[in-house]
């Protein structure tokens, strides 16, 4: 990534409103965004789009689409930071909180945010993960 290029974010969610709302906010924050509304669309998008970070909905057409996609992405783009967004807590009452490295490996995501999410909160996670990723590359 050169300094003149904008940071690229892959945004995947089957909720059209969520997708649109976050795409325009991320674009306004200076990111280049590829938005996909299913795992299939996301797989197609990455043929021509190399993301620096991915934001994925956990439950799309299949309940584990987010997990599967995350594992794919991490195999394809090593060290790609992944933020998993999910309504699973409000839908099922289950609480996910991948605090330890083992848990993060299991979930396949570096951060997990529960819907509804505030944009500043998302932005903070993005900045934190991008900074960590670039530090890791320098090492």
């Amino acid at each position, binding site marked *: 990534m050169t300094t003149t290029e904008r940071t690229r974010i892959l945004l995947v969610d089957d909720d059209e*409103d969520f997708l*649109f709302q976050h795409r*325009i906010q991320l674009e*306004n924050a200076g990111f280049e965004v590829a938005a996909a509304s299913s795992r299939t*669309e996301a797989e197609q998008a990455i043929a021509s789009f190399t993301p620096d970070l991915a934001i994925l909905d956990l439950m799309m057409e299949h309940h584990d689409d987010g997990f599967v996609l995350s594992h794919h992405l991490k195999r394809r783009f090593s060290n790609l930071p992944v933020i998993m967004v999910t309504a699973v807590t409000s839908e099922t009452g289950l609480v996910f909180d991948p605090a330890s490295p083992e848990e993060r490996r299991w979930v396949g995501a570096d951060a997990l945010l529960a819907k*509804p999410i505030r*944009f500043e909160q998302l932005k903070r996670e993005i900045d934190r993960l991008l900074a960590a990723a670039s530090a890791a590359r320098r090492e």
Partner: protein
Amino acid sequence: MQTLRVLVVDDELGMRLAVARVLSNFVVHLNEEVGGEIHFEVQTAESGEQAIEMMTSQPEPDLLLLDLKMPGISGLEVLAQMRQRNLHPLTVMITAYATLETAIDATKRGAHDFLPKPFTPDELRVAVRRAVKHLMVERQAQRLREEKRQVRFQFISVLGHELKAPLAAIEGYLQILRDGTAGQSPETIQQVVQRALIRAHGMRKLISDLLDLTRIESGQKRREFGPVDLREIAQNALDGVAQAAEAREITLALHAPERVPVVADRGEIEIIFNNLVSNAVKYNRNGGRVDVTIEPGEGGLVRIAVADTGIGLTREDASRLFQEFVRIKNDQTRTIPGTGLGLSIVRKLAQLYQGDATVESEPGVGSTFTVTLDTAAPPPAPVSEPSSGAVPIAR
């Protein structure tokens, strides 16, 4: 086949043995849905104390045959103790001296019936059959009430979800506008407002569909029958979607006699046509066709078919389609707005006309929705199937 547990409480050994013998090879036949064939398993107790002990240490019997006069605690006292211990087997009092006072007293304490001593085996069978019938009908009613309650909870929970989603989206759009997190470009702001409006509209449509459904199911809306031309209503429905169809180059066609006069409630017929025609456009492919056919038959029978060349349905999806809130979710339908109530309403309305709504479909080729109506039948009572439980079924 079911076996009911009977406890016979009498201080006379001869009585206990006689009752046990009669009931052990007695069978009561009831309707299948109430319980079918009923057999009996008989236990006996020689005193009120023993009866209470048995009922508390073992599973509660279904039926209790209880002597009134016994040494030790009386039958009335047994009833009182059962109530304290929350034991409620259906109880038939056996007594030689049923004065009016004791009868009233026993009934107040929960006894269901009386069997005067001495009794013949046939009198015993009659009394037991009557008690069993009462017991099983009561149990079936309880099961139905429980099922209805569950269906209603399910409906409310799904409805809550369906109402929450658009509100959450609108909230999101308003936050974006308030916080300015999508920038200030008029174009973007216009888009945000437009999408919020679409969601608000969808929610309003959901609520008005829900009110339609409630009115149909409750039967509280006065149905106003009058002369109606089905062709005219079909044409109006097609005019209503003409713009949307033209934008996607979908051809609309109506195949019907010059006039199709029937006697019906105009509002109901409009809902049927509007729902079917709007679906046929929404779920069509660009450049497709919608064919509406009205075929009047003998004596007020009418067949309405709305065929599209759209995305179609799998057999499995088609079987669920007329249920409330069922929307087929896949890549092709995700962006199509809908409440999931339209077809459920269409079917319920068709049933009000002694008809039905069905679908034949092939994925990727298209679907044909067929509604049959009997407009000659007298206005029937509201549908009595508790299919949604959304509202109490009442006349």
